[in-house]
């Protein structure tokens, strides 16, 4: 396109400046946390020493602090345990459901889809309140099982959506082809379907795990002392006493989520740019 004069250039520049500002807004807060977590002083701003890059102004004390704290270790174990269990549950159920949902013969598809993704679009405060009332009737509050069920529920929509998305590019003729070659249904699933949808399943699982790993409202309502998770512990920390130890945990979590994000992106590309 030929340039249309000065206004075009001004507009284009303003547009780029605007977008840059938005990107800075998105990224800067996360980036700022990382160096501050190495602060040798118990402050939340950059000390002069830090700005002058003096090695003495940086330290690992907050990391040692966190690693040495049994409460954080317990919280991490809980988070991993609840997260993994919820992920396995959500991924299994969600993948099956996605296979059914993309089957052309399914009656009442959109109603079922609406039902299955409802946990994702219901404000979590409402879900958590409902789960608290219901699970306390069943004696499931303050148990790991209760939180696993709650987190699996919140995670399933992500699995359903990602797997269904992978399947929407799936050629149903492959079923017939496999069958005509003599493969049984389970074998077809394993050898034809699963390899094709695996990236979707794994991304769905990662989404489900991340959902559980970052979930705090249901933990606040339903979890007890034994079910303290990392976000729950952070919640207490932020509310009551922000110490740079929180920033150390935050930095670790950032590294963790970067890892997750890159895995999902990689899988997404492998699945064919979906």
């Amino acid at each position, binding site marked *: 396109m030929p340039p249309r004069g000065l206004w075009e250039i001004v507009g284009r520049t303003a547009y780029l400046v605007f977008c840059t500002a938005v990107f800075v807004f998105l990224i800067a807060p996360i980036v700022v946390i990382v160096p501050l977590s190495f602060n040798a002083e118990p402050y939340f701003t950059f000390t002069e020493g830090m700005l002058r890059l003096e090695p003495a102004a940086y330290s690992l004390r907050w990391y040692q602090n966190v690693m040495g704290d049994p409460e954080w270790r317990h919280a991490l174990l809980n988070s991993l*345990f609840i997260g*993994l269990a919820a992920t396995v549950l959500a991924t*299994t159920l969600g993948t099956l459901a996605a296979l059914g949902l993309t089957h052309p013969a399914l009656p009442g598809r959109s109603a079922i889809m609406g039902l299955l993704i409802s946990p994702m679009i219901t404000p979590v405060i409402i879900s958590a309140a409902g789960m608290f009332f219901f699970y306390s009737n069943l004696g499931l509050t303050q148990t790991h099982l209760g939180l*696993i069920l709650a987190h699996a529920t919140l995670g399933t929509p992500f699995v359903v959506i990602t797997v269904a998305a992978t399947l929407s590019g799936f050629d149903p003729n492959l079923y017939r082809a496999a069958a005509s070659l003599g493969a049984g249904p389970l074998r077809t699933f*394993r050898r034809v379907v699963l390899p094709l949808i695996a990236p979707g399943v794994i991304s769905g699982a990662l989404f489900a795990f991340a959902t559980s790993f970052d979930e705090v409202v249901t933990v606040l309502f339903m979890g*007890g002392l034994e079910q303290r998770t990392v976000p729950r512990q952070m919640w207490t920390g932020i*509310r009551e*006493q922000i110490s740079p130890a929180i920033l150390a945990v935050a930095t670790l979590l950032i590294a963790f989520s970067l890892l997750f994000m890159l895995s999902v992106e990689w899988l997404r590309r492998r699945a064919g740019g979906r």
Partner: protein
Amino acid sequence: MTSRPYRSRIRQVVHATAFVLLASLSWSRPAAGNESLTLVSWGGSYARACQKAFNEPFTAETGIEVRLESYNGGLAQIRAQVETGKVYWDLVDLEMADAARGCDEGLLEPIVAADLPPAPDGTPAVDDFFPDMITECGVGMLFYSTVYAYNPTHLPGPKPTTIQDFFDLEKFPGRRGMRRSPLVNLEFALMADGVPVDQVYATLDTPEGVGRAFRKLDTIKEYIVWWEAGAQPPQMLADGEVVMSTAYNGRIFNAQVLENQPFVIVWDGQVLDHGILGIVAGTPNLEAARKFLTFAMRTESLAAVGRYIAYSPARKSGAALMSTHLETGVDMQPHMPNSPANVARALSHDWRWWRDHGDEMNERFSAWLAR
């Protein structure tokens, strides 16, 4: 070509699911075999004092482990446990009004007053505890008070000395920290508005009085930063987030002596209260919990708390055991909330009034906050 790995992966997934579900079923509660108790207290430096004064010596004496959990008051969690029948808190350090309500609601075990240990000189507990301390479902432990404090580094110029000054934005501009609760704040507001100490609850007993208290709070509302945990005010004062803040006196004391913070406590208009130790109804560890309560109520145990934080025992015999701060050697007496110099204008918290009116005040307070 990928059949084998996938097949085994499916099997792994199935196994993992089964394992995880079974494990979660069995992992709901730690094994009941080895005896342990959970004491729920107010976190931060106070919890640390309880750990040193109660938990460690108790474990040394009985072999029963005590885990410390923290909360910010209220009966919600206790009720949730009692009503669902899964009691995992054994002992709770309660505010008096909550203890009374919890008792009415059947959330706390009745106290066996005869079990309470006598004073070192043999005086029976019933005579040794200060009046009103032994209640149906809990026993008073320590006197503490809600005061306000300021950080001179962030407050140049003249310093506040009275409760009126806390509400005086002209003389002392800046944000103030207050607990997110009507409790104590209504009393502060009325005292600052000129109500004599002995008239505060009589005034609150009338709708006009309550209105007056809220109107007084209105005058500084925009400048209030609300806190919930006792550990927050020292932090906010140190950070300069507020120029002054209401706080539990012991937390300010600890920041003064342990962190060398230059905070100053204004004792004028302090609200003196006492903490109650109660046992959660239906705890599976009732025997051990009773044992702990008896242990903690010894004069020596209560006085030991006063070596870590400026709270004083709820028993008369405690005064004789008062000494210095263990880590710094500071004489504790002048820092205690009920020491004579500090009670010149002190209000005794009226838990009966709060038991009866807490709900309405909370509702009105949350409505007031949100508008």
